[in-house]
């Protein structure tokens, strides 16, 4: 079913598929996106992260030509947007701020109409090829056997799958998906994740915009982190998730372990002792040989969540009482007890 996609016909082999320079969007007095220089390498699975209201969706809308930039430039698949929209967009599959469909039509008809809408000649041209495209897309998202009921009667998960199918219709070399697993159950999330990975293996560049860190962590090879309209971090996941140089030791006797290890102990909490050490195997042998039982040992890595919380403020959907004349507490309450922070 997943025939390998043809990579490269979009110049995907060389250079970034998305490149923005100083991309800025103001809505009245609000700066939604502020001078963003973003590059998405071809063939990557790129996660665009950020708190609610950090400008992710406006970024995506500008890349797709839905919203006109106030200043700055954007290139998608090597061509300027929105000027080259007519030649760029047929090669981009998109899911923007949730799926949408004509509610009175069944899913199949929806895809057929949508497919025909973007084709010169419309519904009458090559209906057979259209039917095949639609069936293939439905199969990819697990809706191949869907019945004739109108989309109005679909569940949230079915709508989401239909939205992804619509994005996949033309086998685009670039997918831009906003919260693609929204409304899906864990099994559905796994299916879509595997689908995206297999498409990516076939050469499709996948850009994922999400505030679900676990989603991005599980799927992406590179992330861009947005905060208050600015791109504050772009990094490969491998680098972010590299070991921190510390080892977490689980032991029933933390006192003995701490005494034995002395100066390299950096943190203690309950039955765990966090130690600065380069060689976890040696550390284990050392502890055991001195009679300290070790029930578990792990190399500490930063989670994406820690990185994100460290580098971004609270979301724009949070409004704290005015302090020092500012209505929104930005950076100062990042560590406050009321923020949605989970310390691992």
């Amino acid at each position, binding site marked *: 079913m997943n025939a390998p996609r043809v990579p490269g016909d979009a110049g995907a082999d060389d250079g970034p598929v998305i490149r923005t320079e100083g991309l800025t969007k103001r*809505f009245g007095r609000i700066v939604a996106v502020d001078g963003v220089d973003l590059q998405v390498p071809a063939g990557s699975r790129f996660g665009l992260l950020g708190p609610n209201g950090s400008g992710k969706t406006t970024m995506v*809308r500008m890349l*797709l*030509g*839905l*919203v*006109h930039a106030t200043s700055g430039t954007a290139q998608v698949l090597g061509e300027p947007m929105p000027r080259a*929209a*007519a030649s760029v*967009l*047929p090669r*981009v599959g*998109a899911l*923007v*701020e*949730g*799926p*949408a*469909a*004509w*509610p*009175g*039509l069944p899913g199949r*008809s929806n895809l057929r*109409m*949508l497919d*025909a*809408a*973007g084709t010169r000649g*419309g*519904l*009458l041209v090559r209906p057979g090829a259209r039917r095949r495209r639609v069936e293939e897309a439905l199969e990819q998202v697990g809706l191949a056997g869907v019945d004739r009921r109108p989309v109005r009667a679909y569940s949230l998960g079915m709508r989401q799958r239909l939205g992804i199918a*619509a994005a996949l219709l033309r086998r685009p070399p670039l997918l831009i998906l906003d919260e693609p697993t929204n409304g899906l159950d864990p099994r559905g999330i796994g299916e879509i994740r595997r689908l995206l990975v297999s498409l990516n293996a076939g050469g499709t560049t996948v850009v994922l915009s999400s505030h679900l860190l676990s989603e991005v962590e599980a799927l992406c090879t590179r992330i861009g982190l947005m905060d208050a309209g600015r791109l504050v971090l772009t990094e490969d996941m491998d680098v972010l998730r590299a070991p921190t140089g510390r080892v977490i030791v689980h032991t029933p006797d933390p006192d003995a372990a701490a005494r034995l290890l002395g100066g390299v102990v950096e943190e203690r909490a309950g039955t765990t002792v966090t130690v600065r050490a380069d060689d976890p195997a040696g550390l284990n042998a050392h502890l055991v040989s001195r009679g300290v039982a070790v029930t578990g040992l792990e190399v500490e890595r930063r989670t994406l969540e820690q990185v994100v919380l460290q580098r971004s403020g609270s979301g724009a959907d949070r409004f704290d009482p005015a302090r020092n004349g500012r209505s929104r507490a930005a950076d100062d309450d990042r560590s406050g007890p009321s923020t949605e922070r989970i310390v691992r």
Partner: protein
Amino acid sequence: MIGVELALMLRRRRVWMCWALLCALPALVAVLVSATGLAPPPGRGAAFLSAVTTNGQIFPAAALALVLPVFLPITVAVVAGDTVAGEASTGMLRYLLVRPVGRLRMLFAKLVSVAAFVLLAVAFVTVTSYVVGIAAFGFGGTTTSGGTAAVTGFGAVPSLSGPVIEPVDLLTRTLLTVGYLGLCMLTLGAIGIFFSTLTDSPLAAALGVLAVVVTSASLQPLEAAGAVEQFLPTAHWLAWIDLFRDPILYTAVDRGALVQLGWILVAFGAAWANLATKDVTS
């Protein structure tokens, strides 16, 4: 995109409801008039209605005169107001634009589909009321109330000026009427499309169109508005009645058609100017 728009329109239940209701109102009037035999006297009530009891074939004209002032504009407002705002409110606007469908192409397809809706509406009303008229009133000369006993037989209809209109002639006049009224309603359609680009609410756009109709209709009899009277969108709606005179008086219809075309161009241009520069955030 035009084919898709037409297909989508034809699959909308609301559209068929509009058509059904448009055809039902004249049928209701026909049943009442024929059951009671109480046609309004000439010069009162809707145009042509006084004549229908003598010949059912004139009933399409009476039916059009019945639905024209309020009913037809409402359906056009509903359908045209839904064009862009409806897509925006379901979220399909963004998916159509990234498919991609060019913004001008989309608007043009919307205009074509509204035109198709309007023409079909007028045509359906004409055809159904022809059938209903004959069923209720016969071909003329068979009723006892009328004085024009000379007018009998299939297709022969008295014109407003007296002489009889022959079948082929009646057909051309009816087609001209359908086209002219279609054009008048397309003016509202184009205005509706423009309003529809201004808002994400189909209801607001439809009410905007009705506001235009009401404003225009209230200014029309006002002497103080005499300078602009000719250019009001509703000013020439009744000019088609001249098509049933003998010989046909084209002056009012011509001028009316020009004014309607002007409105369509202006409204469609405004819709395009607005949508082309708009940030689509729906």
